[in-house]
């Protein structure tokens, strides 16, 4: 018997705004001026936040963190396509997503300075706390999406972020499979930033694209220029529309680049060339978005300077707020082991405080 073809699969690549800021008018999404402005402002805020945090970290005023510089379009534009009813389930490298939804920067800073107080963003905003265990959050997204289906919240879908390294984890594949079987309203957005610390994308998988992982789970998959905010917006919007309509999950591969280090504890010179970094700086999402906004008459030299000043003032204020908050009780960890207080844990709290007092007395 001759082989019979039973399936035909292909993966598309979407770019709307190219490196030079030239837009494909046929594909251009209809974003209002305000929406465009908020998206650009948040991307710039994320960029400037990285720069300030790096300074603070080098001065010993902040702990280790992972800068998102270069990926601002990939993690911010998807949220601009979502409504406040949609959930965000991310990791530790999507500042733009969190800031877009209104998380105060002072909290973000507190988190990276080693205080749980930084992970207390209002749950009503539907942003889950940052997940550090790679790919584990994708399963939380699926469970949340199931709950939305179960509760009949048809306007609520879940956007979950992960990296290219995370696509090698079992949890990612289990999440795609569960989401597919349950037809759960989830949008998986892979931040393919080419590097998982020192491991290049080509060593994570032989597959030509990460987007094609979707094929095996029978869901739409698309590769998107992750440095193109309009393409990221459009791809996410279409995926959310499907999710809201009960048509299940989507996998989006955002092709982008981590322009800085994995975290402040990492030195990329050890494993990649500066030439490579230079090539990607030419594809900077902020540069092309600025050109686009200027061409639309929404931004010029003067208004950009005003925006930069406003952002700097905001960051200054938030850093002040974050550094002023020093009255955090030492024994707070005992409050949040379990919702029910237990005598043996309470006795350990007493011993902990007594020990601190003795240490204070001994100077």
């Amino acid at each position, binding site marked *: 018997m001759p082989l019979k073809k039973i399936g035909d699969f292909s993966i598309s690549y979407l770019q709307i705004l190219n490196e030079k800021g030239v837009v494909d008018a046929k594909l251009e999404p209809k974003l209002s001026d305000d929406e465009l402005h908020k998206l650009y402002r948040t991307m710039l805020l994320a960029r400037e936040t990285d720069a300030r945090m790096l300074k603070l970290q080098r001065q010993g005023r902040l702990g280790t963190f992972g800068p998102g510089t270069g990926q601002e379009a990939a993690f911010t534009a998807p949220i601009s396509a979502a409504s406040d009813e949609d959930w965000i389930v991310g990791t530790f490298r999507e500042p733009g997503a969190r800031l877009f939804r209104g998380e105060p920067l002072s909290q973000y800073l507190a988190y990276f300075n080693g205080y749980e107080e930084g992970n207390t963003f209002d749950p009503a905003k539907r942003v889950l706390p940052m997940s*550090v265990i790679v790919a584990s959050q994708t399963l*939380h997204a699926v*469970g949340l999406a199931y*709950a939305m289906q179960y509760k009949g919240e048809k306007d609520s879908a879940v956007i979950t972020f992960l990296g290219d390294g995370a696509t090698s984890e079992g949890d990612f594949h*289990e*999440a795609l499979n569960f989401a597919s079987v349950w037809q759960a309203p989830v949008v998986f957005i892979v931040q393919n930033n080419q590097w998982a610390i020192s491991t290049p994308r080509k060593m994570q998988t032989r597959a030509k694209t990460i987007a094609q992982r979707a094929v095996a789970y029978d869901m739409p998959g698309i590769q998107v220029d992750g440095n193109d905010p309009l393409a990221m917006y459009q791809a996410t919007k279409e995926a959310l529309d499907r999710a809201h309509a009960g048509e299940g999950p989507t996998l989006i591969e955002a092709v982008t680049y981590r322009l800085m280090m994995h975290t402040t504890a990492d030195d990329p010179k050890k494993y990649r060339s500066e030439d490579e970094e230079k090539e990607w700086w030419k594809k900077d999402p902020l540069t092309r978005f600025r050109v686009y906004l200027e061409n639309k008459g929404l931004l010029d030299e003067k208004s950009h300077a005003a925006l930069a000043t406003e952002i700097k003032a905001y960051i200054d204020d938030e850093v002040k707020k974050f550094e002023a908050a020093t009255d955090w009780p030492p024994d707070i960890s005992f409050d949040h082991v*379990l*919702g029910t207080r237990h005598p*043996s*844990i309470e006795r350990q709290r007493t011993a902990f405080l007594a020990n601190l007092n003795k240490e204070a007395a001994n100077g």
Partner: protein
Amino acid sequence: MAKLNMVQAINLALTEEMANDENVIVLGEDVGVDGGVFRVTDGLHDKFGEKRVIDTPLAESAIVGASIGMAMAGLRPVAEMQFSGFSYLSIPQLEGNASRMRARTMGKWTCPLVLRMPYGGAVRALEHHSESREAMYATIPGVTVVIPSGPRNARALMLAAIRDPDPVVFMEPKRSYRAFREEVPEEEEVRELGKAQVVQAGTDLTVVAWGAMMRPTLKAVDLIQKKRNITIELIDLLTIAPMDADTIVESVKKTGRCVVVQEAPRSFGASSEIVARINDDALLYLEAPVGRVTNYDVVTPYFGREMMYLPDEQRIARSLEETLDF
């Protein structure tokens, strides 16, 4: 009152709470149409439908990971691990996320889920179906580990576990699933987590056990009480972590002697923790070293040799006598 076995009693608790609270969802491998390989979830699929009793694909990490998302969205998932021996694939989700969601966010987010799993030996099962790994779960702060010993407390503890605001690992001694029946009250009965139960009072010796070890321990206690005309205080631990050491310590202060019976391997188990707590708070009341009857630090043998390794009535009785005679 109805006489139920443990399978029926847990089923009763699940049925009651699913009827009480539409946020309660059951999920796991074969829990729906099949009613679970041990039939603990039998009938729930018919009663509550496939949206609330979910036959999942085969993936333990996903079952727990998805449960976390459900719990954070306000549902009360009760997830089944088909056997505790397969639950380890889900530990990264339990340790890395569920157990610490409250601490991670200072209580802004919590993770109320129940992770049910049959555990323990003596059922002539193949490899990976006979271990007692409660200690592994008990070392995770933020997780409550519960082990019922009979139908009545299984039902009452399950209701408390589902209503608990945090993750509960609910380990079911499968050897006791159908071994005996008990009167289970028709009216709702909830047993507080984190509390041991003094099953019988006594003055000469304290004996602590839990799960499937309660039955042989009870027999050994009866035997030695009669033989020596003494009274023995028997404590059913019920919650492994956080441990109700106070009940044990108070008892030991009264009796001066203690034996702990544990199905798990000897080292780094709950029995070690009990000895440490007695050492902390009741050392000077002791008239004998605390005795321990446990499995050995070996990989759980196949069932051909299994019974030689598990504590039984005779070994427990000998240990009680040694501690009394010290």
